[in-house]
């Protein structure tokens, strides 16, 4: 079977090169901007400051959404979210290394 007769949708890679404002990120995560500020203050999200304006990369979206989910579903506080995120990333890294050694 051919994949589809419709023309393929063209996507863009959304990563370090994408630039998001705090407004974008707040909309995409469906939380208030104030909450994004809290994420930054707690070190959950990295931010680049350009002319006193905050810029986030596309990676921040994945991290922020994960943070929102953990916060909501596990009733974690911000410090707990920050710790969980770091540990999840470390775990993923270790799993990849283990996989590579197999």
């Amino acid at each position, binding site marked *: 079977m051919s*994949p*589809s007769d*419709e*023309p*393929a*949708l*063209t*996507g*863009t*890679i*959304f*990563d370090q090169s*994408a630039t998001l404002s705090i407004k974008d990120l*707040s*909309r*995409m995560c*469906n*939380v*208030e901007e104030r909450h994004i500020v809290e994420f930054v203050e707690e070190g959950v999200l990295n931010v680049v400051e350009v002319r006193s304006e905050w810029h986030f990369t*596309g990676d921040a*979206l*994945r991290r922020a*959404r*994960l943070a929102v*989910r*953990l916060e*909501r*579903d*596990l*009733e974690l506080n911000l410090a707990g979210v920050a710790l*969980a995120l770091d540990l*999840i990333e470390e775990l993923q890294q270790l799993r*990849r290394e283990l*996989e*590579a050694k197999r």
Partner: protein
Amino acid sequence: MEFKDYYKVMGVARDATEAQIKQAYRKLARKYHPDVSKEKDAEARFKEVGEAYEVLKSPEKRAAYDQLGQHRPGEEFRPPPDWGSGFEFSGAGPGNSTYSDFFDSLFGAQARSGRGARGDFHPDRGEDHHAKVLLDLEASLHGGARTFTLRMPEIDDEGRLVSKERTLNVQVPKGILAGQQIRLAGQGASGAGTPGDLYIEVDFAPHALYRVEGRDVSMELPVAPWEAALGATVTTPTPNGTVDLKIPPGSHAGSKLRLKGRGIPATPPGDFYVVLQIALPPANDDKAKAAYAALAAVLPFNPRASLGV
């Protein structure tokens, strides 16, 4: 519709205190959270637990639920016609969850918290959708169209949350890496104004030859003992076609050769690593046995020297 025993789902007694229910929820939520859990059916279990907690944590919903009495889980069930009168339900709790028909028939789809409770700060724009797909490495190496079947929760005409399948033909951007997202503008939920976007997070399916780490790709290449010892030029597959690779003399098992820029064609491109593996020729005829014997006679070689024996 099947009856659901929320107490059983949470593993608590029917007279459990609020504190016990909260404790049970937290424990189960950590165990089955799809972002954390390695359990097979984590997502389904997590939803079940979330639904049970949504009911049991709210004194009103719990009282109303208790009024139904005890039924066997899975038993065919219809709520009594006068059920739920005199209770006022307020929605709060996990959003984006797909609750069971059982839940919806008791508390109504409007009791589902979702957007409302969490606050929709941008009503003029449709929601973004997010999905994860497993991609073959070749799609990233060469780019190309791939067909994905995504399941999306959607509100139908009657306000019920249903899971809808959607097939998308997507041009995969060349050089995409695991963990990165493909953004498809306008493919999210249609809203009052502009539709939202669709983000597809990519992971690679295991590959027969190659392993991927970030933008680098590696492969184990078997070589004969003499090729490793004396050096040789051998033909090897790489992600972008076969090449002739020079094995330096004195190579050993585990030696890593780097082919710069021949990994994933991202910006900057990754490298391709060839890890040497020494393959031993079998000694299954007299000629081969004689060759091994001759080698043993000539070489004073102790492979266990480092073990001190």
